[in-house]
């Protein structure tokens, strides 16, 4: 017996076009994350308040001369981005777990890596929004010019690497009862190369070091981004299935 024609769903548009199906599913996940966040503002406000508090506390704690201050800028910036990013990653995946929504995502007849890329791009957008707000505030408080193309490139590459591995590990950690503690424990050792390269390359651009000294760190960032995006693409299906 076949279902009533009145309630028959339409045939999938892209049954024979796997790539467009992949992009459509990825776009749907990004749209869903942005629409939900636009309404609740839970994730962004938590990340922003935390990030601004960190740079204000550092501003009072480090009463340094301008030269030394320029030397610690990269470290302070990346501590702020990384901790705010971890907060965002935890929250982003907790939303999926709370009402069983992650099962809803996994039940969709799409390549599951589309879900990973959708979540990762959403998380990256949130992290970049926080960085866009933090950078001018930092510039004002510390009287340091952060709007250098090289530094902005490093921040973008570092954020991509951090979110690529962070989204994968947050998906694993969210299954555990102690997810809030588990994510930093899993993430920081794995993300160490990207953090080290980001701090070194950022410092190089801020101190106006020769490009030959910065280039190896930039190369490391690019390689890390490619490797971890590829690894996440390959293993996400196994990470989410019991």
């Amino acid at each position: 017996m076949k279902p009533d024609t009145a309630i028959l769903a339409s045939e999938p548009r892209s049954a024979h076009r796997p790539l467009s199906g992949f992009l459509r599913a990825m776009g749907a996940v990004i749209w869903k994350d942005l629409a939900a966040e636009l309404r609740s503002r839970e994730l962004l406000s938590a990340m922003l308040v935390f990030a601004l508090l960190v740079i204000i506390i550092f501003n009072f704690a480090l009463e340094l001369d301008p030269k030394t201050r320029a030397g610690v800028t990269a470290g302070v910036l990346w501590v702020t981005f990384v901790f705010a990013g971890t907060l965002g990653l935890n929250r982003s995946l907790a939303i999926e777990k709370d009402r069983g929504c992650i099962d809803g995502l996994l039940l969709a007849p799409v390549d599951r890596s589309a879900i990973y890329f959708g979540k990762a791009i959403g998380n990256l957008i949130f992290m970049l929004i926080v960085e866009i707000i933090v950078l001018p505030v930092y510039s004002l408080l510390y009287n340091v010019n952060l709007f250098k193309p090289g530094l902005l490139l490093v921040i973008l590459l570092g954020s991509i690497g951090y979110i690529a591995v962070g989204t994968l590990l947050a998906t694993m950690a969210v299954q555990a009862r102690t997810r809030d503690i588990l994510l930093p424990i899993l993430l920081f050792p794995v993300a160490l190369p990207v953090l080290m390269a980001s701090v070194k390359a950022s410092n190089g651009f801020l101190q106006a070091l020769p490009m030959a000294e910065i280039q190896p760190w930039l190369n490391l960032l690019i390689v890390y981004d490619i490797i971890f995006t590829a690894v996440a693409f390959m293993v996400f299906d196994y990470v989410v299935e019991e």
Partner: protein
Amino acid sequence: MQTVIEVRRLIKRFGLKTVLRGLDFRVEQGEFVALLGPNGAGKTTFLRILASLSRPSLGEVRIAGYHLPNQSAAVRRRLGVVSHLPLLYGDLTAEENLRFYGRMYGLADLDRRIAEVLELVGLAARRRDLVRTFSRGMQQRLAIGRAVLHDPEVMLFDEPHTGLDQDACAMLDTVLREVAARGRTVVMTSHDLMRAADLASRFDVLSRGVIAASVQRAEINPNDLLAFYRQSLQEVKA
């Protein structure tokens, strides 16, 4: 009749613990099977394997002619799943939730389909309200709407009445009957024997990781279902 779900010698282990121990299960097209059993019998684990959310350790699982886990995307296109969690986003409206899932399934003419489904589950008037403002019963009705959005051939219900009051349960039963009446194959786990007796066309008892007993609705008086259930459990223990 065509076999829609076929499971042979299914084994599922979590570490050293074996939850399903060579389970055999078969459902024909249009059947409504109530899967009964005590807590810890493996009902939810079994349903999660059928839903491709969990990988079998050993054994063969075939749904609508497709193998799990190798052809899981093809199986998922033919499945609708409702659990005791709604699988809905609280910060999206009812309509936005259905639109999101419709996009994930790649449905065309989505506006018309969303309107039909909201009408089916009686939530057309609340289409623009946030899901977090819905009662548990309304969330569960919308969860059914989400599950039937792509018109699946097979529906899996994992204790859908959990946490609902009597009125909400009655309303959910009406929607469940309507879903089943459209010719879908349904497997529902439940602790509520009376409710299962009212809805299902077959009753299977799952105990200690195997199907301990199975009976058609036509072969049993609904009032005797509790005795049948108890006897099945005792036979497995013996």
